[in-house]
């Protein structure tokens, strides 16, 4: 995987550029000795993660390493058993999921969780829910404030739908569109919440090579919007192709982190992935 092989052209930052960025950029998300247990199983073990603004960071590791659990704690679905999560300088402890979304973190799921029986447009519009304020009475009586807000919600949603190329499916039920489109729809929905940090759980899973490439281009383009992206990924092409920083997890612990090419060649990382294969052969 030499850097000159990838198709991203001039959009990839050099290692030096990234070093500069790391020095000056704010840390958007940070976990500090984060721990999560399920009964006797320690899924996440004193895990430290740093995500810098304006970058694409990847979290990789063998299956069962605890990556999705980290995401679930960060986005408030699980409560941490130890350590803390700090987002834009604020401790997220005790916050409910929807409050964390309001603060500016948006996520997608490994197994795509869309609102199947609602249209694509409605799915995306739901992302603007937390940015609206119309209450029951103004909705029942269709106050002018509520009508204005509805129009604004529609506009933002439409923009995002266009951006992911799904405008033609706006009135299709989400369950009826193709798998690849569903993935993009979920990302569009996440983007509609106006996040500062976009957290994607295996976004290229199930996509073919061409779709993966389109996805990578798309994610890169999001950086222009002042977004920060954190990915869980298995597809090494994606990880190497667009990541500015990579953290590696195994059995709940961080075992390596650094620039993509350094991590790729790190013997510990190789052992974590290949070592597992050996165990399975036995």
């Amino acid at each position: 995987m030499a850097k000159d092989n990838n198709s991203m052209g001039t959009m990839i930052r050099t290692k030096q550029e990234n070093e500069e960025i790391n020095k000056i950029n704010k840390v958007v998300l940070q976990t500090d000795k984060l721990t999560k247990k399920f009964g006797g199983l320690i899924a996440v073990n004193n895990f430290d993660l740093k995500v810098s603004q304006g970058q694409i960071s990847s979290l990789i590791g063998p299956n069962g390493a605890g990556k999705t659990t980290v995401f679930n704690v960060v986005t408030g679905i699980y409560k941490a058993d130890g350590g803390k999560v700090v987002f834009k300088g604020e401790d997220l402890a005790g916050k409910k999921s929807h409050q964390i979304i309001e603060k500016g973190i948006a996520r997608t799921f490994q197994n795509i969780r869309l609102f199947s029986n609602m249209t694509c447009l409605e799915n995306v519009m739901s992302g603007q829910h937390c940015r609206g304020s119309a209450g029951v009475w103004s909705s029942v009586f269709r106050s002018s404030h509520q009508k204005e807000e509805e129009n604004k919600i529609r506009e933002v949603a439409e923009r995002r739908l266009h951006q992911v190329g799904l405008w033609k499916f706006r009135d299709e039920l989400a369950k009826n569109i193709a798998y690849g489109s569903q993935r993009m729809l979920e990302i569009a929905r996440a983007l509609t919440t106006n996040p500062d940090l976009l957290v994607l759980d295996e976004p290229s899973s199930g996509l073919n090579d061409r779709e993966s490439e389109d996805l990578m281009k798309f994610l890169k383009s999001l950086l222009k919007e002042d977004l920060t992206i954190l990915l869980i990924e298995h597809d090494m092409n994606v990880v190497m192709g667009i990541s500015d920083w990579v953290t590696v997890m195994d059995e709940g612990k961080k075992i390596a982190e650094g620039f993509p090419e350094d991590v790729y060649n790190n013997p510990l990382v190789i052992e974590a992935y290949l070592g597992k294969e050996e165990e399975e052969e036995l």
Partner: protein
Amino acid sequence: MRIFLEQMLNGLTIGSFYALIALGYSMVYGVMKLINFAHGDLFALGSYLGFTLLVWGNAYVTSHVGLAGGMIAAMLIAAIGIGIAGIIIERIAYRPIYSVGRLPAVVSALGVSIFLENIIMVVWGPRYQAYPVSVVPTLRFEIGGIHITLLQIVILILSFVLLAILYYIIQKTTFGAAIRASALDRDTAALMGINIETIIFFIFALGPALGGTAGVMVGMYYRQISFTMGWNYGLKAFTATILGGIGNIPGAMLGGLLLGIIEMLGSAYISTAYKDVFVFLILILVLIFRPRGLLGEKVAEKV
């Protein structure tokens, strides 16, 4: 103290009714994830079947086979009849709907429940019916100052035997392991080679059969039966299921017995009028504070 022990006995008796009915709910819910609202009405139907047999065969029973024979015959007929009914209902009303979703299944179950309740009303009339005195043992004993009836003894022994047999099957046999596996994860169990058809047959035959037997017991114990008893007992038995841990078969037994005792103690020491309220409050409190019940396991949802 004497009253306390007598109430305990009453509680255990009622508890065994609940336990027998609860087993049906637990098995079906565990494997099929379906609340079989019709189950309570199957229990009632069993009671009426026993009633019919004993009324028609009244003369025969008292002269030929005696009380014991009559009771056994009634329970057998009820068990077999209701077992068959359970299987028929599963075929007609539930099987076509599994793939559609939870809500249609609930409506269908409610529909069956309404249907059964009204069949009973149409066939046997809306007024109370009563098990004839002549077929019910009325012997009373006094042991150590505590009053107990022969009927109670019979019911308690019979119930415990049935429960013990079922416990043995579920916990100690391979077939029982297959049932427990299906209750945990039906699809994987099927993939592992477990014949789900057989499991379904078993739970929809045995659960209602036990319920039908309980129906005869209730008929003999209280003597008065009505077509509305189905859902009343059904709801309480379902409370017992939740109390013990839904999908957990020993839990259903434990829950049933406990519920009977709690209900009796509540009615004796707190208030008879509000005893049903008391039972429902227990249900709600269990669901709030310990939704998995006493013996149930925590089920985490993978996100």
